[in-house]
């Protein structure tokens, strides 16, 4: 049996017995085959000594048991690593940052505590998945939508704490921002309720976010200052209707004006859904088209002449390529806008958007299918589900074997830099990252478009493949780290990452001699002096492990 | 010369000299007449010994000077009290909570560092007021709007850090911020979010950066001195429309608010809404309520049936609500039509169509516009108060439902009754939704230069805080005079949240020099004395 670093086998055995007493023997996993299930299924360290593994796992079923487990961990100085549903694939899965930690698996804490239709909120435990909350709401016939990320089996709490995003109206797409109120078990086993929850018998815990005094919620996201055991979320009322329309721009340089107009329309909430960028010419699907294309139902592959022009182009552009596109009526850029609201308002907003986009010479428009809500079951099967708050696992076609991909990977790791919300930044980022990819020997797409999960910023989400070959994985990891540095040199930082890169990336946030990290460490030492919670998460190491990591 | 508590006169004198060297003699205020200007103009302790008076004030004009001030204060363990523009009237103004603190006045740091009208954000220093930023934008003809609270002379940073609100779609001021720069108690500078990446290109575009999101702990607190803050701005919308719904019966408030919730949570109605009542504001209703506010339901007051009868007799709706719609004219008109359709499920609901504005507006028309909804700063609100020497705000948050409003009317009515407050003194106001999904009942208690009246007011205020807490309602913000009282009611699990705040305080400000007592957070060395 693996033993956590710094612990004697006999102490660990005593701790295990204590854990068993607290949660029941069957919910403490120490057998190798059981603990192996806490590895990262997409581990980029497969077969290497550096692979992150747990020493054991403990699965409590309620707050009181979580408190007991945390107190035991504190007593024996055992590093524990909480996971909610543990499905953070591409960002580390359920494996701890510090190998040998005991995973605190909160999946069994799967109660929906309340869903309030009038004030449109839910209060849930960490083990509740998007699928679970969706079903609860459907079965009660409530007119509320949950904002889901791509994989529906994740946890609203876990996803919000890692600051993930989704697909509905802007304020709901930002999963951390749409939370309201938390309950946290601190490293000393004490329970904290934030915001209005600090009022006993609180009537507004999920109505008003910040309560009174310092608003602490944010420090529990992407961090290791406490174990979150309940969280409130604001949900989206089911709209009256959905409409989408796509604008097509003909020329390469049009991207700049397109983004500028898009920003205006988005920031004034003329379009309130997630903008979706694509390139018909360069063969880049919009997010809502990915699955369709993967099925082989996308546009036909380019003919020989176009293929040749594409291959010869530099960063997705050449004068000849643009000439060809114009001559054949193939648009350079597409941008799908979504509108949620009453039919007439959606239509008026789309008309206005078209008016604004007409400033782009030669812009074309397509009115896509619009839907009165709720959708019929048949419609549910057809649509891009996340845009209707329907959880699924469709996105796992990425990297999977399919008609268009005969070479499946063993998973992926996401490289996710945030770049400014301008067309110029898209061009520059492509130039910089292509150059870097060439330099570090990794395959790169000719051109990539960012996503609009967040208002007012762009995010590139590049999938680095994970393979079963150690040498390839090592090369890809080195390239990933190099790209992190390249991005930082251009003032672009990542928004989230897997444990393998948390130190490397936090190191780029180095303003004033890493004063922010040092501030994080000050907080860490104060709220978790024994350093038992998720040691190393997002670069925050407990004092006793700090020098060795530097 | 006053000396801060726990500091020797010699140490204070040394500190003053060092501050003078760092800032220039001119900007260190020690004379009584200068320091008096930092008292709370609306102090509820006027003429009493309890009134907190600063020992001195210092006014830096740049980041390095702020760092120097803080380091010197740390050396001598001198309590500082940071203000931005210092216009937090009704919540304590520019006066410290702890008498004898030195006010750190950031008004001179008044640079607008950037306004980006393509990505719609601003980066400002603490001394920049809403008037300042508005003029900056107008002078350059930038097509962005700011969101203003009632008084326009406040600081964007100061207001956001006290978690205030305004009227347009970006009305939640703290929520609309993006990125901060903070001077810690050690004098060290931290930039949050993407600002922690040197040369960052997205400091005002993406809030969270990487790792723990710390910004929130600097709001309503004393963990650092904020010296820069980014704010998201609203691009000038294409149009605006307001519309008012009126309902006849008392119970209609329930479906009215249900519909309002749906419209607001769907982003159709954007901006702050306030529930009103032509009936309850009428002379007949007030007279039936003993000359006081008919909004509060005190025992012995008129029954709902009696009030409804007045409403029928005088053709006064029981409740109304004015809503704001932002967007192209065709859109706002469609949204208003839709809203009317939804409200029409309430029998006898009636409507007043507000004007549809096509934007941009003609600058000459500015005084005809609903300024708050258009992000135009003013000081109009000061004309709306009754005759007094100021006010202090009692600001409980209740759920956004009709039932909660009814309950609040009764609970506060009962509380006033139990405290023997006469009808005319029973301050209560209509609930406003400054923040999504909740109502704030922003009651202004008048302040007089009369010790007895103020003492009584303070007593009643505390009684209301207690009554609210007994029903699970807390204040979202409060006057320095009541910070301990309010902090005390957030007592879940033996005050675990405050103990957590104190844990952080002791770590980030071990000498306890930054704004001691703000929102109930005292430094360790002062804690026993206060508990």
């Amino acid at each position, binding site marked *: 049996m693996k033993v956590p670093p710094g612990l004697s086998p006999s102490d660990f055995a005593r701790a295990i017995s204590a854990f068993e007493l607290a949660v029941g023997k069957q919910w403490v996993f120490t057998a190798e085959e059981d603990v192996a299930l806490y590895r990262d299924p997409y581990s980029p360290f497969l077969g290497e000594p550096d692979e992150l593994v747990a020493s054991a796992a403990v699965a409590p079923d309620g707050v009181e048991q979580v408190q007991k487990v945390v107190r035991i961990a504190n007593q024996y100085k055992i590093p524990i690593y909480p996971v909610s549903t543990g499905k953070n694939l591409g960002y580390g899965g359920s494996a701890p940052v510090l190998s040998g930690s005991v995973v605190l698996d909160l999946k069994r804490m799967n109660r929906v*505590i309340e869903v309030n239709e009038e004030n449109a909120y839910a209060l849930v435990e960490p083990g509740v998945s998007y*699928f679970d909350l969706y079903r609860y709401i459907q079965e009660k016939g409530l007119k509320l939508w949950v904002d889901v990320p791509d994989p529906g089996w994740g946890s609203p709490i876990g996803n919000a704490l890692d600051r993930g995003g989704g697909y509905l109206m802007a304020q709901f797409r930002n999963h951390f921002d749409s939370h309201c109120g938390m309950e946290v078990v601190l490293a000393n086993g004490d329970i904290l309720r934030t915001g209005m929850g600090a009022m006993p018998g609180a009537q507004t815990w999920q109505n008003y976010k910040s309560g009174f005094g310092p608003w602490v919620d944010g420090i529990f996201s992407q961090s290791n200052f406490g174990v979150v055991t309940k969280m409130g979320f604001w949900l989206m009322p089911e709209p009256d209707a959905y409409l989408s329309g796509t604008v097509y721009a003909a020329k390469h340089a049009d991207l700049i004006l397109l983004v500028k107009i898009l920003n205006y329309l988005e920031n004034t909430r003329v379009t309130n859904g997630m903008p979706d960028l694509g390139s018909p010419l360069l063969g880049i699907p919009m997010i809502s088209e990915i699955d369709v294309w993967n099925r082989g139902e996308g546009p036909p592959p380019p003919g020989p002449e176009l293929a040749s022009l594409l291959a010869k182009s530099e960063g997705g552009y050449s004068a000849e390529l643009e000439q060809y596109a114009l001559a054949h009526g193939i648009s350079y850029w597409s941008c799908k806008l979504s509108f949620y609201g009453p039919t007439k308002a959606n239509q008026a907003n789309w008309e206005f958007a078209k008016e604004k986009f007409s400033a782009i010479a030669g812009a074309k428009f397509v009115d896509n299918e619009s839907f009165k809500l709720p959708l019929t079951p048949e419609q549910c099967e*057809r649509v891009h589900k996340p845009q209707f708050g329907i959880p699924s696992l469709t996105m796992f076609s990425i990297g*999977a074997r399919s008609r268009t991909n005969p070479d499946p990977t063993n998973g992926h790791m996401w490289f996710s830099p945030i770049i400014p919300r301008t067309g110029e930044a898209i061009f520059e980022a492509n130039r910089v990252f292509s150059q870097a990819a060439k330099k570090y020997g990794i395959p790169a797409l000719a051109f990539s478009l960012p996503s609009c999960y967040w208002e007012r910023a762009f995010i590139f989400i590049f999938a680095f493949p994970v393979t079963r070959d150690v040498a390839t994985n090592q090369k890809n990891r080195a390239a990933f780290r190099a790209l992190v540095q390249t991005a930082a040199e251009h003032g672009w930082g990542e928004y989230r990452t897997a444990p393998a890169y948390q130190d490397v990336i936090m190191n780029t946030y180095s303003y004033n001699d890493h004063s922010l990290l040092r501030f994080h460490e000050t907080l860490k030492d104060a709220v978790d002096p024994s350093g038992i919670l998720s040691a190393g998460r997002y670069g925050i190491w407990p004092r006793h492990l700090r020098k060795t990591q530097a | 010369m006053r000396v801060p508590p726990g500091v020797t006169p010699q140490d204070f004198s040394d500190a003053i000299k060092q501050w003078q060297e760092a800032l220039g003699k001119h900007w260190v205020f020690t004379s009584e007449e200068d320091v008096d200007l930092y008292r709370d103009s609306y102090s509820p302790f006027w003429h009493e010994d309890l009134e907190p008076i600063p020992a001195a004030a210092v006014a830096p004009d740049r980041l390095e000077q702020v760092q120097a001030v803080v380091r010197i204060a740390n050396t001598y363990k001198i309590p500082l009290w940071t203000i931005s523009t210092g216009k937090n009237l009704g919540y304590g103004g520019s006066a410290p909570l702890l008498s004898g603190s030195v006010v750190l006045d950031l008004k001179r740091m008044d640079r607008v560092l950037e306004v980006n009208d393509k990505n719609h954000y601003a980066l400002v220093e603490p001394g920049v007021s809403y008037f300042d930023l508005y003029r900056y934008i107008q002078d350059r003809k930038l097509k962005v709007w700011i969101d203003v609270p009632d008084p326009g002379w406040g600081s964007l940073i100061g207001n956001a850090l006290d978690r205030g609100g305004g009227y347009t779609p970006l009305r939640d001021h703290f929520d609309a911020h993006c990125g901060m720069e903070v001077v810690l108690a050690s004098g060290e500078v931290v930039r949050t979010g993407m600002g922690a990446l040197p040369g960052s290109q997205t400091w005002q575009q993406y809030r969270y950066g990487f790792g723990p999101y710390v910004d929130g702990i600097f709001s309503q607190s004393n963990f650092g001195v904020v010296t820069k803050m980014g704010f998201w701005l609203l691009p000038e919308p294409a149009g605006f429309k307001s519309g008012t719904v009126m309902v006849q019966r008392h119970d209609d408030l329930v479906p009215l608010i249900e519909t309002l919730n749906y419209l607001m949570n769907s982003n159709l109605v954007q901006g702050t809404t306030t529930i009103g009542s032509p009936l309850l504001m009428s002379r007949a209703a007030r007279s039936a309520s003993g000359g006081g506010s008919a909004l509060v339901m005190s025992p012995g007051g008129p029954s709902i049936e009696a009030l409804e009868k007045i409403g029928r007799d005088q053709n006064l709706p029981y409740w109304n609500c004015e809503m704001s719609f932002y967007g192209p004219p065709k859109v706002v008109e469609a949204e208003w039509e839709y809203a009317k359709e939804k409200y029409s499920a309430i029998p006898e609901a009636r409507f007043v169509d507000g004007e549809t504005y096509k934007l941009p507006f003609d600058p000459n028309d500015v005084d005809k516009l609903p300024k708050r909804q258009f992000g135009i700063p003013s000081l109009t609100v000061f004309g709306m108060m009754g005759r007094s020497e100021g006010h202090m705000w009692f600001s409980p948050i209740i759920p956004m439902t009709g039932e909660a409003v009814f309950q609040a009317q009764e609970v506060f009515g009962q509380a006033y009754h139990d405290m023997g407050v006469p009808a005319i003194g029973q301050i209560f106001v209509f609930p406003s939704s400054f923040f999504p999904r909740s109502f704030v009942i922003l009651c202004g208690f008048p302040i007089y230069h009369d010790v007895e009246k103020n003492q009584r007011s303070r007593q009643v205020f505390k009684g209301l805080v207690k009554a609210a807490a007994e029903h699970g309602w807390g204040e979202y913000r409060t006057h320095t005079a009541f910070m301990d009282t309010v902090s005390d009611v957030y007592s879940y699990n033996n005050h675990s949240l405050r103990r957590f705040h104190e844990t952080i305080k002791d770590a980030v400000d071990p000498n306890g020099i930054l704004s001691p007592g703000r929102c109930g957070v005292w430094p360790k060395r002062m804690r026993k004395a206060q508990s």
Partner: protein
Amino acid sequence: MKHTGLLWVIALAAILAAHGSAAQDQGVRIPSSWTTTTVSGQGQPAGYVEYQKYCSACHGPGAGRPGTAALEAKYKGAEPALLDQRTDLTPELVKTYVRNGISVMPFFRKTEISDAELEAIARYLTRNNKR
């Protein structure tokens, strides 16, 4: 014995007070499932419900099922792309895939799919295997 009764009431109140509002600590335990509707096992073979709950999101019929798409590309018709129509699966094979994963399909913990549930899924998927 009134006295004792009162003590019990006080003790209960103290427990409730320590845990905050009782209502906020209850709620409905949601049986885990990666489906958008609750599955009924009525008239279905053993293990059907578990298969639907944990496998159908990727291995079911219709669009957007990456598992089915992958198997279709792999077998190109030589075997059914739908897992639950296969006749050649064994319990060991099923358990191996669930506990070890393959390609982008991750493995699953016992708090997600317990051993008992895995037995049921294996039983369901091997029901057509004549051997």
